[in-house]
């Protein structure tokens, strides 16, 4: 195993539902190495999205520790505000997030979207158009999201993520709303680039074929150490 | 407290009808409008005429402050020197807001009292033209009123004045485009209508005190748009007072006063009601005593209308072999005042020839 990128230990998250407490993530531990990919599977509501939110700090855990690169976030540690600030900085520069859709600002062209994301990450925006070209949508750079197809939009979303040169990519059903053929293409590009750039990838999906492309698997229906 | 500058509303205020009394506007002319205020004076009630009430002369030529409404009413069928018929009307109404006992002194003029309102109407009908004016005043201030002795009825510069023995009257009035100055010689005793002066106005016993002078010779001058016409002819004078004239449901009246060529006279009226009308009248033979006519003895039928107003009538009194057709001359004889009504001369044909006057209320809002 390569040097660990992400180490998760005893991660738990509960939600209050009426008088009861529902446990969404319970004492989860796993490790992801540099350049490795992990497939998160499980039926709807099994906590895939919650876990992704925890892993990028959009939600804070009730218990457990997350160590990403050189930063360690402990559920019992610093104040929520400080943690939020730390996570914000990480997301801005090092964590790329891809959702099923609506990853782009509708008021900006594809190119402007990529540039905006790159600039936020502190990267040179000049390469933005290259990224679009590398994802085969260079000629669409000056189109708006509503002027291109769903597949092209997801490609643009990937361009944005890679333009920020992330350490970790979190993808939540990135091909969920695409047809099979387009989905395959987007998946191929995703794995290709991930491998080439050596960043970590955590992919939440219930598409078994997609999950099979990953090196590690975590079924949230049957949580256990990986 | 809201005071109204509105005349119409002010008049309703002045009318001051209590709830049980007829909501009849000014002297019954408005038809059934809702009254606004109750009778505020609880000490002195309004007197309501009833069967058994008698006339008193000359006092009854003067005002009756304890009755709600009354009027002095002259209509005249005149003829110009050129032989054209010319009709004249003069009426003065009093409408009480508060009843006052006869013995009680009138309130001081300096207080601009509000016990009664007066309204005067003057009209001249000639060659299809109808001239009409209206005047209003509050009572007890001085510019409007009436006295029995000497006999005077006045409102501003319109006045009817009698001589010492009340056999010779002078009537003066001026309106826009018209004026008249007439001398009236009164002949014959007053004719009491109904039950010795009590004239029923419905089957339930509502009614008024009512008498007429039916033998009046008139001479004088009428000025129309600057043209002075010498006129002569005969007149009919009514005095009537009550505290309730129309009862609820009654919509207006049709009234006729006729001089027949035979020397007989006829007064007839009908009060129109949703549930059947009330008819009454008086047969005044050339010789002999007047005879009251009941509903059964009178037949009255409207034949033709002009703009919603019946202008041709059939009137018959079978008991006296009277079967008349009455017709108003061409023209519009609506008195367009605050409460519009029709007042026109009529010519008489049929069993008798003759002339007279017709008053129709409640046809026009």
């Amino acid at each position: 195993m390569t040097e660990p990128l992400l180490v998760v230990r005893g991660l738990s998250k509960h939600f209050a539902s009426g008088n009861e407490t529902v446990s969404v993530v319970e004492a989860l531990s796993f490790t992801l190495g540099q350049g490795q990919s992990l497939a998160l599977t499980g039926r709807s509501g099994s906590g895939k999205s919650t876990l992704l939110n925890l892993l990028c700090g959009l939600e804070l855990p009730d218990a457990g520790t997350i160590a990403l690169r050189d930063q360690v976030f402990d559920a019992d540690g610093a104040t929520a505000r400080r943690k939020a600030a730390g996570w914000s900085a990480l997301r801005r520069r090092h964590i790329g997030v891809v959702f099923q859709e609506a990853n782009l600002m509708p008021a900006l062209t594809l190119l402007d979207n990529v540039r905006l994301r790159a600039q936020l990450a502190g990267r040179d925006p000049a390469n933005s158009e290259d990224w679009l070209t590398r994802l085969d949508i260079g000629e669409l750079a000056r189109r708006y999201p509503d002027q291109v197809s769903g597949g092209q939009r997801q490609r643009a979303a990937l361009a944005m993520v890679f333009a920020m040169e992330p350490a970790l990519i979190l993808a939540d059903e990135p091909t969920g709303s695409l047809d099979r053929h387009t989905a395959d293409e987007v998946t191929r590009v995703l794995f290709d680039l991930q491998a080439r750039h050596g960043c970590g990838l955590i992919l939440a999906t219930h598409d078994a074929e997609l999950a099979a492309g990953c090196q590690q698997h975590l079924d949230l229906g049957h949580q256990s150490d990986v | 407290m809201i005071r109204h500058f509105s005349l119409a509303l002010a008049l309703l205020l002045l009318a001051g009808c209590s709830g049980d009394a007829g909501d009849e506007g000014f002297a019954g002319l408005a038809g059934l409008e809702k009254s606004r205020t109750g009778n505020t004076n609880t000490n002195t009630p309004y007197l309501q005429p009833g069967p058994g009430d008698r006339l008193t002369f000359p006092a009854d030529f003067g005002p009756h402050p304890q009755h709600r409404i009354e009027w002095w009413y002259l209509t005249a069928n005149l003829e110009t020197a050129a032989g054209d018929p010319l009709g004249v009307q003069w009426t003065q109404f009093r409408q009480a807001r508060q009843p006052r006992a006869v013995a009680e002194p009138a309130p001081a003029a300096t207080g601009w009292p509000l016990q009664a309102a007066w309204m005067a109407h003057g009209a001249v009908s000639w060659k299809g033209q109808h001239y009409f004016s209206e005047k209003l005043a509050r009572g007890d201030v001085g510019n409007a009123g009436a006295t029995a002795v000497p006999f005077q009825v006045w409102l501003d510069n319109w006045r009817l004045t009698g001589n010492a023995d009340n056999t010779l009257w002078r009537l003066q009035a001026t309106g826009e485009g018209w004026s008249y100055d007439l001398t009236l010689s009164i002949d014959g005793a007053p004719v009491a209508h109904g039950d010795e002066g009590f004239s029923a106005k419905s089957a339930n016993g509502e009614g008024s005190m009512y008498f007429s002078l039916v033998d009046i010779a008139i001479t004088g001058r009428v000025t129309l748009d600057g043209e002075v016409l010498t006129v002569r002819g005969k007149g009919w004078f009514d005095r009537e007072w009550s505290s309730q004239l129309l009862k609820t449901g009654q919509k207006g009246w049709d009234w006729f006063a006729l001089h027949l060529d035979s020397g007989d006279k006829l007064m007839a009226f009908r009060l129109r009601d949703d549930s059947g009308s009330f008819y009454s009248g008086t047969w005044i033979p050339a010789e002999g005593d007047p005879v009251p006519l009941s509903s059964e003895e009178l037949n009255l039928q409207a034949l033709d209308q002009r703009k919603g107003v019946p202008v041709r009538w059939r009137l018959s009194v079978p008991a006296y072999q009277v079967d008349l057709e009455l017709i108003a001359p061409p023209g519009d004889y609506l008195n367009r005042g605050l409460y519009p009504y029709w007042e026109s001369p009529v010519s008489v044909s049929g069993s008798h020839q003759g002339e007279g006057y017709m008053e129709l209320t409640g046809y026009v809002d």
Partner: protein
Amino acid sequence: MNGSLSRLLPPYPSLFMPKALLSHYRRHPLQLLALAVMILLATMLWTGVSHLTSQARVSLAQSESAVAERQQVVRDDGQALAVEDFVSLRLAGVCVMPWLEVTPEESGNRLVGIDPLAAHCFGADASQAVDQPLDGKPFVDVHFAAGTRARESRLYLLVSDTTKAAELPPDYDLTTFSASPDTGELGASFLLNLEALGVLVLLITALLLRSVYLLGLAQRRDSFALLQRFGVSPMQVQGWLVLEILVLALVCVVPGVWLGRWLAAALGSGFGQALDGLFDIPLYAGQGQGWLTPVLVMLAVVVIACLGDLLLRRFRGRLSLPLPVRAGLAAVLLAVGLVMGWLAPSLLWVFIAVALVFAGAGWLTPAAVVQLAHWRANHSKAPLALWRYRELAVLVRRLTLPLVALQFALAMVLAVQALVTTFESTFDRWLAQRLEAAYYIEVPAGANSPQATEWLTSQQARVTGLQWHRVIRGSAQLAAAGDAREQSVDVFALTPVSSLIRGWTLLEAADRPWEALAAGEGIMINEQLARREKVAVGDRLQLILGDQPRALSVLGVYPDYGRPVGEVLLNGETLPDTFNIRFESLSVTPGEPGIAPITDALEKVWGVQTVALRDNDTVRALATGVFDQTFALTRAMTLLTLTLAASALLMMGWVFFSTRAWYFRLLVVWGLPQREAAAQLLRLALLLTGGIAALALPLGIWLTWVLVHRINPLAFGWSLPMAVYPAFWLELALLSLVIGLSIAALMRRQLGKPAIAPLSANALTGGER
């Protein structure tokens, strides 16, 4: 409507359609509520404003003949009038009306007793002219006034304008009568402006209605598509939509009208007294029972505002022009409107110009803001700034209607504020000009005024603080150069030219004008005369005074609000003996000893029992009080409109921002701290409302200018001073920022919650950009 409706509705009596249509509102009850509330408020506001204005207008028109510009009868022997005089005049056939002024012992408010019965002879058409119920004080029945325990009581007998002195019995004469300062056209002018305000309110509310309705319609598009798949034709859907909005409108318009009347009545009791007291306009209370007109107008407005374009589908193709063409057209409209507003020769054209400018501005503003935002975006270095301006462009496009409504409302509030403040200060100045002295004493007909002035002159040295002058009014003929026809002007002559009037603000003046006037070196003229005759300071005016022609140099031009008549102010000593004096009075500020010794002395000098005295302080206090009330009312109405517009924008902004919440959340996902994302939101909201406020400013100023400098001179021949009130601009700017802050605050709450991603790809297409 009936025919087309029956064509649109399905021929079978089915509950399917209404159920299908209503299901939307079952799912979005708040939207239905918002629509209903908007219709209700709009109706209420418009009904309220128009009710008040039309009431006041009708009353004004009637009072012109009934109460304004009157003559009164006086006794030749100078004695006070009594009931007997009324009676003898009446018996002589003169149409006189008693006017009993009473100052009650308990309270200082003056009452005026009138006799509606006696007034009957004033009206040509009795049923109309006299049919004006009067709303309480200060007018009461003369009987009530006579019965009031009074400190002071005086009877006037008014006659109509057409009455000639020759018609009066001997021992009586005619003179002019004014009970309170006759503001003349100032009232009419104010009402005209109020009426214009009413039209604007209607426009604004229509825009707001449309915005709320279109929001719902957009959400219902999917269900309409579904219905069409079920075989319901678009025509039928439209028919049902018309029916639906008609029913909703009817349900809301009727209580709205009722509420509007209630509002008008509630505000009107104060308003009524204000107008009563000052303009002599009796305000209707409970008159104008016509429900049909306001209900029909509002129904039409609701249907047109909501479905106008849908019903005119045939023309829609022609109406939806490409953006540059539309912007160009709007610019042309705006330009034409502006030029026309400047040059318009008549009122109608000015109103058309106002309509053009508003249409142009309403069309151009959103387009211009969008263009500006794109331009700023293209020139911004910071990526977030680029995003913010692009987002602003989207916002402006999506919120066009409520934004334009807010812009119009802001402009209107600006204009009304300036107008009201202008009127206020004009009235203040006008009052100061007319009530320059503490007391005003009528010189009785036939009295010897030189004797009085001699006496007053003798007192001048002895009494400290005594200031006075004698006022002579009459008329003179103006011989206009090169014009054969003579023109009559009012003469306002003073002796001496006392310090009382030297504080007047002059529009234009020669050097030391008052000294020159005192020396008899010339005259002053009012603005109306200067405008009409195009006379300036230094010109000479040819006047015929009495029988003497004179050429007099113009020393100054003074503002003289509220009258169309030209007037010359001159030194009374220069009047020839042949000058026909129409009216004489003394203006006196008595100094320390008070007015009593002066009136006593004048009574002795003139040999009368009482002199007619007017305490100007009382008049001024009354006038100021009632004006404050009137203006406060006007402001309240406009602020209510603004509030409506603001809350509509707030509501729409909230709904729209909700659809954008995901993207703000995206910023957080991209690593922007919550606070920064919220700051972006705040900047965006403030840009939006601040920008609208900034754009409303020129429109508002222009509207003010049109009202005071174009409409007023065209309608009445005199202009109001144009003033701008930057402090109020600041208030409005703050207000619009508060609206922006409120939107941002509402959204901030959503930002904290996990956002829901737009559900389908459909949501990403169309309109969002």
